[in-house]
Structures are given as C-alpha cells and as structure tokens.
C-alpha cells in the first residue's frame, strides 16, 4: 500500500496528504504538513471520482477547470501567487526539476500556480492537452512559432491577418531569416502553390481581422496534413466558446486573451494551445535533441505534451514572454463568465449589423451573421453560435469624401469608445483611415483591403437600443 511506501520517506503526517508533499514545492503545496489537522478535510483513502468519470459541460469548466481548493486554506477563488520563485524540497528534487524529471514550479518566468490555473482552464475550454500562457497574444505567436522555426524556414499565412501579426512575420521574423508569404485564406490552390521545401508552418485566423472572413478550416487541415505541416490558427475573435479549432484537428491554436477572454479590457495576455493530434517527432526543430537539456528529445519523452513542454521549458524560458500572475488572475475572472458574455456580444452584434445593413448612410456591412455575406455558410459551419462581435462597415457618405465622413461619424459617437482594441465589454470603434492607416492614400488603403470610409466596430454588452441610437445619431451627423 502507498501508505507504507510513503512512510519510508519519513515526513508524511497522514495517509491522504502523503503524495502531495513529496513533489509540490512548499510554497503552493495544497497539503503542506504545516496545515492544522482541522483544516484538512480529505477523507481516508476513497477519493471521489473527482470528475474523472464525467465529461463536464463548457460552463462548468469555465468555473472549475484548473483550480481545486487547496487543503491548507480552502480558498475558493484562485489565489494570486505573486512570487518570482519557489523553495525546493531538497537538492535532489531541485536537480530533477531542472532536468524536467519532476513536475513543479521553478521560477515564474517558466511557470506559476496562478498562471497554471488559467492555463489549465483555457486548455480545458479549448479541448487542448495543455496550454502555455504568454505576456500577450503577440507573445503567444512568437513562442508558438519560435518553437517550430529555424533560420531559413518559411511561413505560409492567410493574407487576412491582424496587422501586428503581419509585421511580426514580415519585419521581426525577417531579422531571424524566416520568410513569410501570404495567400487568400480560402484559396486552397494558392496555399498549395505557396508551400515550398522550406515551409515549416501554415498560419491563419478563424475570423480574419479586419475583413471578417471565416476560414474554411477543414480542407486547410487536410492540405496541411498532406504536406506534413503543422497549422496554427489564431482564434482570438471566436474564443473557445464560439469555435474550437482543435476539434477540427487543427494542431495548434494561439489566442489573445486580452480581448473576449478577459473581457474587461484591463489585462494583456495570450495563450498557446496544443490539441495533441499532431506528431511533432516529424518536425526537426521540435524533435531534435535539446542542447540545453542534455540531448532530451521532447516529443519522444513527453509524448503528446512534448511540443508544449518544449515551448515552456525552452522558448518561454529563453524569451521571457511570460504572463504575470496578476494578469493571469484577471483573465481567470473573465473566463468564468465567458459564455454568458459572448452570447450577449453576439446577439448585440447581430442586431447592430442588421440595423446598419438597412441604414441609408451605410454602403455595406461585412458581418458573416448576415445571410448575404459571402462567409455566411462557413460561419454557420464553424461558428454556429455566432460569428463574433467584431466587424466593419462602409459609410455611404452622400457626396462627401469618405475619409471626412468617417471622421465626422467617429467624433459624434457618444457611447462607442474610439480606441485601438477589440473585445472589450464596452463597444469600441475605429476608423482606420483617420488613425492606424492615416498615412496611406485612398488607393493604398484599398490595395491593403481597407477603404477610406471603412469603420470597424467591436460590439459590447450595452443595452442594444442604446447602441442603435448612438450609431443612428452619429450617422445622421454626416449628412448635416
């Protein structure tokens, strides 16, 4: 019996707490032997099924996955472990930790108990084998890709990408001798033609920013598989509530947690998720012996957790792109209400899109929730609960210059916040032609898929009628 086994270790007070003490660093050990007996309710030897026998629903996991109230304090909320480092049990244990032979906390740049709660929770919601949280969505892209790529490698990516991702690929990665090419997201032949012997990864967004294009994931996964390449999908606009690309056998997902995951607009963060379906022993950059771990081969040793272990133990360790424990705590607060909020985001977005679609001052609305939208069928397939809450529309400026009309519209809005973010609980608006892209001519804007009269909205949780009122009065101001 384990009871007798553990007694041989000579430091374990009661049968039920023995195992934890042997591996968990004291700082976060839930069953620390310093805890008073009265605060340690675990019973004697017949643990409950602890969820093992049941597949709990999404909403249950939003609230419970990744956090079990610890025996020492019983804290119901996830505590903020605002610590840089963790005391080792002994030198032998420390050596095992550094060799990755023991599980445990070493240093918050690599892992942290609060961050781990966030990671396991979002991994559970995304149906991933695990997650690595990062300082931002951009950091998630960086560490996900740096784990896969070496100098001379190439990325083939959808042309419908967030601008920051595009500059990461074209500017920063170029300094590391990694090249990227861009293709129309749903043109499979274009993807196929762009893949060369040096291509190591394919990259796209579930819902392209800002075009609102829905990626046809299934055939792209097939194409990636046929080439033996991992596909990474940025699922920021959809969240795991609206779409779970890993369920479609996408190997890897990255996600900004700053947006709908947090929802409050207080904290920057990101996450890398692995569905466990891709065989990384076939990818040299991941599979080859690691110089910094005595020749350890991550996918051989850690199986389907190998890619994430390498991402954490090497890339996160070396780049320092880690999420702070406080931000992890904030993002956990967001996850706990994700489905409820996103449902309302989507309902409001649909109402606003339909309203604008009928408005005489609006030329067109690019929301896949509208039946006439070219991505409507794909949205129904991949995003049956709704295609998110971020979309663009084109002003019909009634004889005015579209750029000036856009400016007038923005300046007359009362509720929509004019800023460069999306996915806040509040409704947000951006007019690229007078802000992020103001240095481009009308023609240059059209060449990059934008236009001078284009407005981007991120629909929040406000009273629907108040949002419609605000848009109406600002549209009315254009024709004054």
């Amino acid at each position, binding site marked *: *019996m*384990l009871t*007798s*086994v*553990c007694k*041989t*270790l000579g430091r374990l007070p009661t049968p*039920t707490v023995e*195992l*934890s003490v*042997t*591996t968990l660093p004291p700082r976060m050990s*839930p069953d620390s032997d310093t805890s008073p007996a009265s605060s*340690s*309710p*675990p019973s004697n030897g017949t*643990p*409950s*099924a*602890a*969820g*093992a*026998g049941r597949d*709990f629903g999404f909403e249950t996991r939003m609230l*419970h996955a*990744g956090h*079990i*109230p*610890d*025996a020492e304090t019983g804290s119901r909320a996830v505590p903020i472990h605002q610590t840089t480092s963790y005391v080792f049990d002994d030198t032998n244990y420390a050596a*095992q930790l550094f060799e*990755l*032979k*023991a*599980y*445990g906390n070493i240093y918050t740049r690599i*892992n942290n*108990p609060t*961050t*781990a709660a966030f*990671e*396991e929770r979002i*991994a*559970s919601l995304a149906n*991933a*084998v*695990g*997650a*690595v949280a990062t300082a931002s969505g951009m950091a998630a892209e960086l560490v996900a890709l740096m784990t896969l790529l070496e100098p001379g490698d190439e990325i083939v990516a959808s042309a419908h990408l967030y601008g920051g991702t595009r500059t990461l690929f074209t500017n920063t990665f170029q300094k590391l001798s990694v090249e990227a090419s861009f293709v129309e997201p749903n043109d499979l032949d274009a993807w196929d033609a762009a893949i060369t012997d040096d291509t190591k990864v394919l990259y796209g967004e579930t819902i392209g920013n800002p075009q609102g294009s829905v990626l046809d994931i299934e055939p792209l996964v097939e194409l990636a598989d046929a080439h033996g390449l991992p596909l990474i999908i940025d699922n920021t606009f959809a969240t795991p509530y609206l779409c779970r690309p890993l369920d479609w056998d996408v190997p890897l997902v990255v996600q900004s947690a700053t947006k709908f995951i947090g929802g409050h607009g207080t904290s920057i963060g990101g996450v890398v998720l692995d569905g*466990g379906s891709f065989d990384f022993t076939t990818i040299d950059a991941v599979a080859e012996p690691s110089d910094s*771990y*005595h*020749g350890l*081969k991550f996918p*051989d*040793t850690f*199986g*389907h*957790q190998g890619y994430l*272990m390498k991402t954490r133990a090497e890339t996160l360790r070396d780049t320092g792109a880690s999420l702070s424990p406080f931000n992890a705590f904030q993002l956990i607060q967001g996850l706990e209400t994700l489905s409820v909020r996103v449902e309302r985001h989507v309902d409001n977005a649909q109402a606003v899109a339909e309203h604008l679609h009928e408005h005489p001052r609006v030329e067109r609305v690019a929301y896949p929730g509208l039946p006439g939208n070219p991505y409507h069928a794909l949205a129904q397939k991949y995003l049956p609960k709704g295609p998110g809450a971020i979309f663009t529309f084109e002003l019909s400026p009634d004889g005015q210059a579209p750029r000036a009309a856009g400016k007038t519209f923005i300046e007359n809005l009362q509720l929509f916040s004019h800023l460069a973010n999306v996915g806040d609980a509040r409704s947000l608006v951006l007019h690229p032609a007078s802000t992020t892209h103001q240095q481009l001519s009308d023609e240059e804007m059209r060449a990059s898929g934008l236009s001078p009269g284009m407005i981007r909205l991120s629909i929040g949780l406000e009273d629907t009628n108040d949002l419609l009122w605000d848009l109406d009065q600002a549209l009315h101001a254009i024709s004054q």
Partner: protein
Amino acid sequence: MNSSLSPEQQEQYQHPDTIRRLLRATDTIAMVGLSSSPQKASQFVATYLQHQGYHIVPVHPKADSILGETAYPDVESVPGPVDVVNVFRPPHECPTYAEQAAAIGADALWLQLGIVSPEAAAIADEHGLDVVMDRCMKMEHGRYQGGMHWMGMNTGVITAQRGRRQV
C-alpha cells in the same frame, strides 16, 4: 483523450477508477525496458515514480543496476512481490510480459503511452490482472496528484472538494 484505443477499450483499459486504484495500492513496479540512458523517457518515468515513493525494479537484459536499483534480466527473475509490471517495449513483445506478470502473481499489467497490445491485455485479463494500456504512469500520477497541472496541462480533474489534488 489522445489515445488510439476505441471508446470501449478506453473504458476497459484506461478507466480512471482502475488507474487511481492502482496508483494508490501499488508499492513495487517492475519496469520492463527501463533504459540505462538518463535522457530516455523510461528514465523520466522511473525517476519520477521513485521520488514519489514507489519501489522501482528495473528489468533489463544487460544492466546490473539502474537508478540505484538492482536490475534483473527478465520479469520472472524479480525477487519478492511485484504489484505492477510496467512495460516500455514494443507491442509484439507484450504477450510474453503478460504471461510473466501472471506467473509472478502481479496485480496489474501496465503498457506505457503509445503501446497497445489487445493480445497481451486478453492474456492478463484471463489471469485476473488489471490492465492499463496506452497510458503513461508518470502522467497519470501527475494528473491526479497535481504535478501535471503545474505545467499548464489539462488534467481533466474537476472537483469543488477541498484538498482533492491527490491520486
């Protein structure tokens, strides 16, 4: 989750109740195919389980000792009671280990992650042994005890009961 087994086989050979019962009840684990090389997966598993207090007995055709424990050339040479025969060898060898596990009176045959042998399972079943297949003993221990959670992995363990991070 992450297994080539059918749902029925998973129910039979990866059942959480069986896994947790074995992890709790086991003292001695005979590890067939435990490598003498420190960077092999089997050494990671053995080092971890040893640190958790399990008695690891290496079964290795050539080595004298691994991780400080005397190694034996085959399962049947292992002296003393063995609770689990844990296998890191290819599937076609597994029926032999199933026979040997039964012969020495082990309680269970445990084939590691990626190793599937319905034939070995049938033999072990027949002799009344518990069988686990295509599962890593370290990961399963870490799933319930919590170590795997600290690495951001999805353990699937959900409970509101206090202090339940244990096997």
